[in-house]
């Protein structure tokens, strides 16, 4: 309401109920700190990566342009992460802490007009193909995926459905984590000189798969955590020199991570999952879909970005702030497939989608652009231990 006073931290008076807007900083003990690691006086062994770094002793601090203040009260310390912009309502205590009575986020950004198609048009989303991994189980599933999309698999009905797939989006981690280490750091040079990086073979395989896909459908390829591109967000597109066969086709589109596009009037926005998994590590939220929804409400794709996730040091403007509400908001490399249609107060309709890791789940997602419905597709072969 208008009767609440909006104050800057420097203007706070003890005991006065007011509203303050600022950026959160979460002080975490377990947070990996490079300074601590290299500090000699501590003699610390570098901490192994943990799935979650949260601890009960974490504290929230609100910062605005000039000052910072500790927060306590009706605020879920475990759930929030550094970098969130929020407004808190409460009053300053005598001991210098701010007692929070309520808080709120930026909420959903303003909606985009809907220009979706009137007939069934599908977009296939897959992520985490994980090529180059040691195990070849997912290879047949990948081949089945390609076959379905290119219309070779399935009876006539299935093929005609597949013919309506207007776009395929590969959301990151096309290469597997196994392709990452080359042992050049650990082993002596004379041992590793002749060995090729595992990613070379994997990229060749990727090229062949993309070639098959490109001959029949436009493909957007986003880089991911394990792909040969830069580490910091926003990740640049894979270079087309790595994909000589597939690059010859205009249907291959190498795009950035995060990726925003208008497909047939439907606005897609998504990442390869690094932002969500980073928040997962520093927050008590466990569900990828919940985290995805929360980033949308907070108005920022990746609040933890410069702090714990590598990010280009933008200083004038932050491109990760959500200024418009997309129609489909996805993240790749999630552990499971989840989807939810979110309705906003201003008429926003967003399909939240967590695209599962294909190498683990052999599942891809099919989104119908007409009504924003979504369906997972699972592929499987049969193994020595034929279950089901």
């Amino acid at each position: 309401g208008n009767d609440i006073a909006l104050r800057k931290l420097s203007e706070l008076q003890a005991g006065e109920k007011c509203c303050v807007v600022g950026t959160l900083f979460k002080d975490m003990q377990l947070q990996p700190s490079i300074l601590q690691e290299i500090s000699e006086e501590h003699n610390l062994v570098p901490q192994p990566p943990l799935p979650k770094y949260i601890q009960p002793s974490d504290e929230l601090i609100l910062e605005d342009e000039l000052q910072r203040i500790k927060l306590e009260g009706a605020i879920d310390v475990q759930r929030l992460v550094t970098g969130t912009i929020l407004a808190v309502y409460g009053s300053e205590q005598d001991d210098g802490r701010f007692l929070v009575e309520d808080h709120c986020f930026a909420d959903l950004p303003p909606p985009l007009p809907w220009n979706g198609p009137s007939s069934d048009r599908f977009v296939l989303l897959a992520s985490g193909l994980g090529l180059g991994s040691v195990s070849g189980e997912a290879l047949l599933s990948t081949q089945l995926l390609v076959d379905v999309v290119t219309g070779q698999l399935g009876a006539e009905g299935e093929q005609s459905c597949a013919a309506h797939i207007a776009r395929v989006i590969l959301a990151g981690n096309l290469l597997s984590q196994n392709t990452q280490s080359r042992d050049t750091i650990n082993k002596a040079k004379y041992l590793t000189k002749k060995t090729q990086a595992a990613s070379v073979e994997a990229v060749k395989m990727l090229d062949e798969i993309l070639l098959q896909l490109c001959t029949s459908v436009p493909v957007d390829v986003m880089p991911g955590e394990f792909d040969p591109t830069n580490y910091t967000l926003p990740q640049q597109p894979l270079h087309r020199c790595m994909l000589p066969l597939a690059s010859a086709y205009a249907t291959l589109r190498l795009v950035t991570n995060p990726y925003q596009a208008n497909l047939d009037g439907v606005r897609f926005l998504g990442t390869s999952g690094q932002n969500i998994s980073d928040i997962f590590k520093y927050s008590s939220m466990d569900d990828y879909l919940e985290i995805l929804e929360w980033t949308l409400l907070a108005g920022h794709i990746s609040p933890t970005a410069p702090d714990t996730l590598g990010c280009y040091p933008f200083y004038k403007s932050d491109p990760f702030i959500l200024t418009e509400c997309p129609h489909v908001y996805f993240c790749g490399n999630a552990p499971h497939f989840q989807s939810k249609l979110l309705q906003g107060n201003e008429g926003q309709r967003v399909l939240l989608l967590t695209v599962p890791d294909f190498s683990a789940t052999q599942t891809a997602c099919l989104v119908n652009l007409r009504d924003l419905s979504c369906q997972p597709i699972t592929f499987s072969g049969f193994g020595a231990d034929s279950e089901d």
Partner: protein
Amino acid sequence: MADELYLENIDEFVTDQNRVVTYKWLSYTLGVHVNQAKQMLYDYVERKRKENSGAQLHVTYLVAGNLLQNGHVCHKVAVVREDKLEAMKSKLSTIASVHVYSIQKALLKDSSPLYNTDYDIVKTNLQHCSKFSAIHCAAAVPRTPPDAPRAPASAQSPQRQRDADAAGAVNGHGPPAAKPPPQQHRGIMGMFAAKAAAKPQDTHKEAKAEAKEAPGVSAASSKPPTKNSIMNNFFGKAAMNKLKVNSVPEQPKEEKEVVKPSVAVAEPESSPNTVAEKPGKKTEPARIQQKDKKSKTKRADRSDDEEERDPENVKKKRKRIKQLQSDSSDEEADVPPSPTPEEEGAPSPPPVPALKTELEPASTEVSAGGRKRKRKRVLKSKMFIDEEEGCMGKTGCALHSLELTLLLTI
């Protein structure tokens, strides 16, 4: 009967050659549509089973359908062995398709032989992997420049009169893959051109031309500059004036493109510039423009510049005909297709925007450098056979440069 033939084929593959015959493999091998291949496999299985109930045939099927899982509908596509087929079918609430995936003599433990078969056959047919597929995409056309030497002669002339106003201009032959050899040559040429540029009296002239081209050069992140730089590094000499190296090779490149009809891609692309002169070429430029990046426009500028220089070069060459007879004749021979349109272009600057006029004075100044460049072109020609340098031999080139140095000292 044609029908019987394929049955025999499949029989041969499965029993005699002991292959794993997947529908995809059969489709590529017999050259039939995938659906037809599936039908063939099905027929074969039916017949074989009827004839000989003890047939050693193991069949795998592909089942696809909807499954109710965790409350929502999930689509499942699975390859199953025959014995598990019914179980899978019963699990699915609705079945979208069932068809034969493969036939083989031996019982498969897992699906990797299926994958390997498909992988091998696709690998050998990568270029037309969608030929027998049920879905065809109109947009999936490979970008290969040398798909047709379209109207080489007429294309070349427009290219000559490239306008500086190449705002949309192209020339960016997109896929570098098609032109590595010519570019390498140009790279070598560029290297020599750079060496020529080192001559003091030309540096200031070069600098001017460079100033015009520098933005273009820096902007041009296209393959040609990179190839040139590769060549430069390889020779390890043209470090003095990197920009020059980059810019100059662009120009000889343009010329080379003129004389080489096979690399016609860039030529039609240049035509946007010549829209004023050759209205007929409009369709091509429009097409190419879509594909090309903005940086290419700078290249067009440079090439334009280069074209401007050509008449001067030719004229300068004529002056020294007495010393370098064979050379100049060759170079003139090489230039003939171009100079004629150039001369047309040069006298008709009116449709040209300001940039071109700027280039013209620059080009005159650079003519001396151009002269050297021309020489270098000849030198370069020894690397590969050019129609222009028919009679030019290695020794000839060496002599040529020697005479040139003599001339300059005079």
